[in-house]
C-alpha cells in the first residue's frame, strides 16, 4: 500500500513539571507552571481550559518552539527516554514533524496565500529532509514528491487536484484538511492539534474531527487535542486534562470526568454546560479571571472557588492520583491519596 498508510511506532510522551515563562516589561508571566501528564501510545488526550490558561504554550513547548521573551524554565519532556527539553536545536529538528507534529492554532488562516497547496506540503517535507541530510535538495525526485502530496491529500479526504489550488480557493474545512496533511507528511507518532475546529461550523467540525481520527488510526499515532469546548472533548478524547491558570487542575478518563468531576473548577465547568434538554440559565464563574502576571497565593483557583477552605490560600496543592487514573490538584482530596 501507499506510504501514507504505514503504521508508525507508537510512542509515549511524558511531560514532567513543565514550566514556561515569558519575561515581559510588566513582569514574568508563568504561562505554564509545573504541568505533568503522560500521552500514552495511540491514545487521544485532551487539554481543555479557558483562553490564557496555557494550552497553546504547552503545545509550543512540546515542539520546542517557544520564542523569546519566552523560555522553557524547567521540567522534562520525555519522548520515549529522550528529554526534548534538553535536546540541542539541531537534534530537535529531526524530531519535529517526523516524530511529533503540531497543527498550530489558527493554522488554516496562515497558509501562504500566494503558494499552491502542493508547494506548501512539499516545502514542509523538504525542509525537514534538508535539515536531516544536510544536502540542498533532499533525496527525492519531483515525481516522488508529487505522488506523496497526492496520497497525503487523499488521506485527509481531499481530491488530488486540490494540490494545484491556492488557499483562497478553498473553504475553511478544506484548508484545515490541508493543514492536517502538512502535519502528517512525515508520519509522526504524535499529533498535536491546537483548536483545530474552533473557526469552523459544526457540521464541518465533525467531518474534520473524523478525518483527524482516521489519520490517527492509520498512523497508529496518539493525538493531543487542545480546545475549550467540553462537548468536543467528550466526543473525541479518551482522557482529558483540565487547565486553569497555567496548571492542570485535574486529569482523568473522559467518561469519569463527566460523570463525576472531582476538582471544583471542573465541577463548575461541567455544571454550567448548556443543554437543550433541561432549562439552563447562565452560570458564570464567580470572581475575576485569572491574572497570570499576578497569580494568587496557594491554589491558583482559590479566589473563585466555592469550596475553598483554610489551606487553599496558603499552600499550593499538588497533582496527585487520588483514585486509579484520577489525578486532582486540590486540597479537598489531601486525605484521599492512595499509597
Amino acid at each position, binding site marked *: 500500500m501507499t506510504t501514507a498508510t504505514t503504521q508508525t511506532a507508537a510512542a509515549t510522551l511524558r511531560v514532567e513539571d513543565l514550566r514556561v515563562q515569558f519575561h515581559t516589561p510588566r513582569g514574568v508571566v508563568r504561562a505554564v507552571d509545573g504541568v505533568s501528564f503522560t500521552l500514552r501510545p495511540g491514545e487521544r488526550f485532551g487539554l481543555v481550559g*479557558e*483562553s490564557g490558561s496555557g494550552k497553546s504554550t504547552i503545545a509550543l513547548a512540546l515542539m520546542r518552539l517557544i520564542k523569546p521573551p519566552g523560555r522553557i524554565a524547567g521540567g522534562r519532556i520525555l519522548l520515549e527516554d529522550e528529554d526534548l527539553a534538553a535536546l540541542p536545536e539541531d537534534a530537535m529538528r529531526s524530531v519535529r514533524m517526523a516524530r511529533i507534529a503540531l497543527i498550530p492554532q489558527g493554522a488554516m488562516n496562515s497558509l501562504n496565500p500566494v503558494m499552491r497547496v502542493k508547494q506548501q506540503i512539499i516545502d514542509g517535507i523538504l525542509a525537514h529532509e534538508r535539515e536531516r541530510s544536510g544536502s540542498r535538495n533532499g533525496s527525492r525526485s519531483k515525481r516522488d514528491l508529487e505522488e506523496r502530496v497526492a496520497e497525503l491529500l487523499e488521506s485527509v479526504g481531499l481530491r488530488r487536484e486540490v494540490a494545484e489550488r491556492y488557499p483562497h*480557493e*478553498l*473553504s*475553511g*474545512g*478544506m484548508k484545515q484538511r490541508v493543514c492536517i496533511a502538512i502535519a502528517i507528511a512525515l508520519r509522526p507518532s504524535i499529533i498535536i492539534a491546537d483548536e483545530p475546529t474552533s473557526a469552523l*461550523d*459544526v*457540521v*464541518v*467540525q*465533525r*467531518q474534520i*474531527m*473524523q478525518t483527524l*481520527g482516521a489519520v490517527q488510526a492509520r498512523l497508529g499515532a496518539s493525538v493531543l487535542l487542545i480546545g*475549550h*469546548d*467540553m*462537548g*468536543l472533548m*467528550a*466526543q*473525541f478524547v479518551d482522557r482529558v486534562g483540565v487547565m486553569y491558570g497555567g496548571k492542570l487542575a485535574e486529569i482523568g478518563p*473522559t*467518561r469519569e470526568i*463527566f460523570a463525576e468531576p472531582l476538582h471544583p473548577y471542573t465541577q463548575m465547568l*461541567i455544571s*454550567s*454546560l*448548556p*443543554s*437543550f434538554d433541561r*432549562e*439552563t*440559565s*447562565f*452560570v*458564570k*464563574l464567580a470572581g475575576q*479571571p485569572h491574572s497570570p502576571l499576578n497569580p494568587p497565593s496557594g491554589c491558583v483557583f482559590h479566589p473563585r472557588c466555592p469550596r475553598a477552605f483554610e489551606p487553599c490560600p496558603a499552600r499550593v496543592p499538588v497533582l496527585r492520583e487520588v483514585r486509579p487514573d484520577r489525578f486532582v490538584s486540590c486540597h479537598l482530596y489531601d486525605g484521599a491519596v492512595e499509597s
Partner: protein
Amino acid sequence: MTTPLLELKHVTKVFGHGEGATVALSDFSFAIGEDAATIVAVAGESGSGKSTLARLMLGFISPSAGEVRYRGTDLRRLSRAERRNFRREIQAIFQDPFGVYNPFYRVDHLLTTPIKNFKLASSRAEARRQIETALATVGLNPGEILGRYPHQLSGGQRQRITIARALLLRPRLIIADEPVSMVDASLRATILESLLTLNREFGISFIYITHDLTTAYQISEQLIILYRGVVAEAGPAKQVIRHPQHPYTQLLIRSIPTPDPGQRWMEEVVASSGEGTDAAVWQGCPFASRCPHVMPMCQEERPPLYLTEGAAVSCYLYRESPTIEEGDLTVTLGALAGAGSRGNGSITVGS
C-alpha cells in the same frame, strides 16, 4: 398591524454577476414591529447570508431586488430627518469589538461621540451620568473603564462597552452580528446577559446573528435557520431546536458535540457540503445534494415555506401542510409565538 419598525420585502442580494455571481440572500421577507420587544436569532453556517442580512438591515448595502423599509419608507428614500432617526433607532454590534475602537483615544471618546452627535445630553455632567449608567447596566464599573485605552481592556470588556454605547442611543432594535463568537465561553454568558437586560428592561428588540445554536437557544424567542441564503426553517427557538423538522436543521443539531460521552458523535457519516462550489447555481432545494430524504421533486423547484405544526419549514417532506403566502415569516412567527418562550424559560412573548 401598525407600520413595522423595520421590514424586508422579498429581499434578494446578489454579489457579482454572470458565472461568478453569488446569491447571498434570496427572497427574504420579514418584519420587526414595536409592540413587544423580541429577540430573533438568525443562525446558519458560514456563507449562509447572515452578515448580508445584517448589512441590508442596517442600510450598509442595498438589495438587488425587493425593499428594506424603515417605518414604512424604503431606506433608499429616507429624508434627512428620517435617516437621522434610523441611525439612532437601529444600532449594530459586531463580532470584533476591536474594530470600532480607535487605539489612540481613551474609550470615553467612543461613548461621548454619540451623545454629541445626537445631542442626547444638555451638559457634560449629564453626559457623564448617562455614560456611567449605561456602563453599569452592562455590568461594568465606570471607574475601572473610563480613562482607559482600548488595549488596556479585555475582549469581554470591549464588547460590553460597545453594548453600552448602543444603549446610550436608546435604540428600538439592535442588530448583533456574532457578538460573542470571539470571546471566551466564560465571558459569553456575561455578554449575553447584557443583551437580555437591554431587551427586558429597555424594551429593545434584537436580531441576534450566530452560527452557534446553543446561544440562540439561550436568549432568543424566535429562530430563523438560513441555508445558502434561503430560510430553511423558522419558528419559536425552543421548538426548532428541540423538534427540528427540516433535514438541514436536524443535521445541524445532531452535529453539535454534546458533553455526553455516550452520544457516539464521531460515528455518523455526513455528505460534504460541496464545499467550495458556487451556491449561485442551483435550482430546487439548496439542500438536495446533501439531503438523506431527497426526492425527485426536490431537484426541480425550490420548496415553498410550509406551515407545519410548530414552525415554518421549506421542505417537500411537509407538502401536506399549507404553504405560507409570499414567504412572509412575520405573521407566521407571530402566530406560532403564542406558547413560545425562550430557552431559559423565564420569558413569554407579549402579544
